[in-house]
């Protein structure tokens, strides 16, 4: 479904990604692991069209997307839930969800999507008239995911969704990620929290200093000595 082929990205003179190749098949949950500054957000922003690549190609559903603007990429059903949530703080929870269904693709079935999202996040429904900026951190993360789902993603990319959440909420969050996946949404999960991410995902990639150094099935990665030492703390 998504193919990132031999991609290099630079910020000015500094190269952030080196010949990065990864792919996500329809129906999978794939996780991209790495520590701070490894290039995870750079990768995801390049896929979303916010950053431009210096070399390589990105294909989504067989179409080349690396020269498209971010808003056209959204119309193809490739949705990012960014790190730091990027909600609209002075708009209500409901308006944020409406903004999720902004793309033409998402507008048609927005009522159905809204019902599903409310079913996933019953707590948000009680908060429809509240301003998004006044929600707690956990609720804001739920809203960010709900808003992303309102865009009717074929492939949903989550950038560090567990960042700053209490452990109990983190567990709930990963459960929701699996539920979304069962609803035939393919998922690319960018995480620092390797334990939970590998338990949830089918496959994983490990990113260090802008290079993919390892990839494979989650069950294999959990056994890998390097992963155990660097990311699982075992």
């Amino acid at each position: 479904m998504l193919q990132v082929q031999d991609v290099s990205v630079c910020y000015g003179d500094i190269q952030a990604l080196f010949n990065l190749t990864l792919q996500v098949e329809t129906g999978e949950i794939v996780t991209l692991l790495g520590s701070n500054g490894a290039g995870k957000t750079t990768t995801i922003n390049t896929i979303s069209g916010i950053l431009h690549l210096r070399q390589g190609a990105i294909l989504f559903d067989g179409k080349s997307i690396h020269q498209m603007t971010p808003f056209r990429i959204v119309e193809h059903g490739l949705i990012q839930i960014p790190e730091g949530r990027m909600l609209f703080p002075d708009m209500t929870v409901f308006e944020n969800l409406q903004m999720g269904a902004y793309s033409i693709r998402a507008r048609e079935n927005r009522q159905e999507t809204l019902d599903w999202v409310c079913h996933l996040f019953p707590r948000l429904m009680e908060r429809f008239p509240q301003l998004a900026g006044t929600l707690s951190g956990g609720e804001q993360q739920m809203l960010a995911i709900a808003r992303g789902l309102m865009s009717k993603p074929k492939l949903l990319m989550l950038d560090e969704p567990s960042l700053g959440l209490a452990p109990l909420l983190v567990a709930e969050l990963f459960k929701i990620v699996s539920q979304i996946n069962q609803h035939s949404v393919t998922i690319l999960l960018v995480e620092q929290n390797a334990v939970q991410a590998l338990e949830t995902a089918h496959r994983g990639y490990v990113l260090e200093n802008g290079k993919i150094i390892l990839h494979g099935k989650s069950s294999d990665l959990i056994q890998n000595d390097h992963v155990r030492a660097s990311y699982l703390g075992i």
Partner: protein
Amino acid sequence: MASIIVQLLIIGTLQGGIYALAAFGLALIFGVSNVLNLAHGQFLMLGGLFSYILFMATKWNPLLLSLILIPLFFGLGFLFERGLVRPLLERKGHELVIASILVTLGASLAIEDITSFFWGPEEKGISYMMPSIQMGSMVISSIRLLGLLFIVLLTVAVHLFLKKTYTGRALRATTQNRQGAMLMGVNTFRIGSITFGIGTILASAAGVFYVILFTITPFIGIPLSIKYLCIIVMGGLGSLYGSLLGGLILGITEAITGYFAPHWSETAAFFILVAILLIRPKGLLG
């Protein structure tokens, strides 16, 4: 005395309404594009000038003539953004602000020269009489009341646009988080052009009232732009509705001090600005 106070309040609200309209337009533009548009006052002047030209040609009610200006000035603002502002958006932060000041100031000077070349530098005003309304001992100018009504209608229309339409919501979303809006599929560049169009409509509408109540010359644009900048700072940068409040406060202050101590009206306005910023450094609603 009561009649004077009512009159002053009407004049003040109308004057404040004019400020509020134009400042609201500038706040929209700043919020979406992070561009300080010093040509904003010139669009007000052009709005006044065009309605003056139309009025001289037809002698119709200048407020009704202003309806023709709406699509015209939307197009003007839209194209202004496409041609002069869009190329600047590659720059970030203070570079963008400085570049935008230089470019829009240059555009202002050009507009000033072009208008004084073609239509002359002298003062122009529309003196349009409508029967006054008498209430007891009070005489209220009905063109002023009609002006107020137009300002309220226009503000409500923009408010509904911002709240109820997809494009309006996308505009607000862009002011609150540009990248977040982009990731939801908002073409933030198109929103930037539309916002310039709407902001320019508001400036030109304020210009119509300006030319009816006062007079215009080609040289009022730049000082007015600076005044509107003050108003949006007073209302709170980034707060769209703060500019409305700031404009109203400034207008009423100017009208009241203008009656009792004419020389002090501008000074009083800036005293209020400073006082508000001392108490609330981020502005009224910032």
